[in-house]
């Protein structure tokens, strides 16, 4: 019907005077319709790509989780129902949900997430508050904070793997020189220490992200309430907890949630620093090990699906809580 190629719109726009009431009323609607159609034409390629790389593969993963597909012959499989998740057979429970190694990986991931995001938030806040002050060389320090962010995760894991080396590592050397430890520690292999080694690397790598987001929030704060507090002679620590923190809290929460969702799917740093050790294995490492190393696509997909559900739950909770903000903006 309305095949409004640019040409008719052009003649219309140029030909009719904008003061004439009826064409002026018709013109926007026509232009608007054209723009609507263009909008969808522009969106469809993007949505198709997302469907191809995200939507469809996710559905297939969920599908595979109910089959016995293997990595080598992914096209030949049988339907097995919930066997990969949980099955009662001969007096014993089998499946992902009955595997202690899976639950260990869930615990590891949660522990990693809470501790590393917590530390990153505190350190990020300290760095941001420092960078928010006026001093010479501020640009230099700010540039330096970006370095860990720019280093690829694999490289930072290897760098720290070397620094944490049990025999020749500089960290052990420092701690021994300072007299904190008496003999070298085997950071990446010791069951009690390896998770802390992973957390150390992650904190180093992602604190800059937190610091920069916090700094951006700090720089948007109005200065008048600080002046008022200064005039009233209120202690800076009190000002921080009573004024600064509540004001930057919304921005800080967004950064924290981003980091939490990221930490829940952690893979690289753990895989490279401690390989497939059960002491540090995250949910992603567990799922990939089943999928690729053990070639069990069905079982690995079941683990992946559970991980997806956990993250989806976290995301939905977040979106639900933050809905007002986004809705208001859109």
């Amino acid at each position, binding site marked *: 019907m309305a095949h409004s190629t640019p040409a008719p719109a*052009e003649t219309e726009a140029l030909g009719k005077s904008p003061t004439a009431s009826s064409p002026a009323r018709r013109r926007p609607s026509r232009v608007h319709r054209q723009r609507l159609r263009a909008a*969808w034409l*522009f969106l469809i390629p993007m949505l198709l790509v*997302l469907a191809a790389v995200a939507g469809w593969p996710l559905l297939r993963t969920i599908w595979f989780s109910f089959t016995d597909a293997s990595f080598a012959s992914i096209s030949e499989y049988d339907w097995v129902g919930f066997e990969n998740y949980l099955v009662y057979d001969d007096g014993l429970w089998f499946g992902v949900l009955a595997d202690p190694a899976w639950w260990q990986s869930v615990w590891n991931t949660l522990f990693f997430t809470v501790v590393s995001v917590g530390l990153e938030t505190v350190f990020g806040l300290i760095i941001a508050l420092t960078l928010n002050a006026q001093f010479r060389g501020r640009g230099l320090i700010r540039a330096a904070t970006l370095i860990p962010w720019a*280093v690829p995760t694999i*490289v930072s894991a290897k760098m720290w793997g070397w620094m944490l*080396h049990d025999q020749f590592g500089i960290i052990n050397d420092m701690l021994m020189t300072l007299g904190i430890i008496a003999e070298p520690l085997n950071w990446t292999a010791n069951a009690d220490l390896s998770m802390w080694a992973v957390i150390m690397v992650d904190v180093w790598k992602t604190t800059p992200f937190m610091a920069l987001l916090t700094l951006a*929030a700090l720089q948007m704060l109005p200065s008048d309430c600080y002046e008022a507090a200064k005039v009233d002679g209120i202690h800076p620590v009190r000002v921080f907890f009573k004024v600064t923190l509540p004001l930057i809290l919304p921005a800080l929460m967004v950064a924290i949630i981003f980091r939490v969702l990221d930490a829940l799917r952690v*893979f690289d740093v753990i895989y490279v620093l401690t390989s497939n050790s059960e002491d540090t294995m995250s949910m*992603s490492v567990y799922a990939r090990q089943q999928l690729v190393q053990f070639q069990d696509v069905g079982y690995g997909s079941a683990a992946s699906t559970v991980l997806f559900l956990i993250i989806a739950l976290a995301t939905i909770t977040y979106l639900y809580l933050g809905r007002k903000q986004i809705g208001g903006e859109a």
Partner: protein
Amino acid sequence: MNRKLAKKLISKIAFLMLLAIILIFTVFPFYYAILTSFESGSELFTVEYWFSSFDLANYQSVLSQESFVKSIWNSVFVSFSTVVIAMAFGLTAAYALGRVQFRGRGTVLMIVLSVSMFPQVAVLSGLFEVIRAMNLYNDPLALIFSYTIFTLPFTVWILTTFMRQLPKELEEAAIVDGASPLTTLFRVFIPLMWPAMATTGLLAFIAAWNEFLFALTFTLTNSERTVPVAIALITGGSQHELPWGNLMAASVIVTVPLVILVLIFQRRIVSGLTAGAVKG
């Protein structure tokens, strides 16, 4: 009076110490990697805090490995292509989402946002099947295809944020002149979007350059790998015989370009990161 001065001095010293700690915390690991990369032989096994030698042997050894050099080219190719694809789809989508009011816009934004939350491992087996079906297994093209899952959502998101900030008058003028939406996008918005495109492009480039899980899973042979996988798979005889000198030299080679890029464009990157997160 004296006490006040002393107090001021102490707080100044404390602040400087804080700065020093921050500086050491952020820079030292990379500094130490560079230092190690210039050491060879038995030097590696004594802990040094300062540069004592400038031995290029590690660099020569790494760069003489054909597969490592090939993996650098693979990474460059994959990262650039990923950026181009993300830009092409991202810009058009951002125009629609940022400039046109239509029903379903909030839903589309939600879809984009939720895809960015996908754990990569959750699509691994499905994506593997798709890649096998397209006959792209063990081909860097498979990586370009799969990387859009994380580059496209944030490209769309950040570009939409920037697109929305541009004044309405520009577009109205174009509409009055009868320009089609595509012309408006190319003639009016893209010229103004260069800074935003540089930011998002850089973020997409870094994300693609650093990606590990897909690269590890969808490629098999040394000649098809990207640098993160190549570095992760550098091995010696055993855990204790890892060639640390070579490893650090390779790490420095792939990181220095990124660090330089990030330092040059630091303001843009910070604005991109905050636009991506604050609006999220």
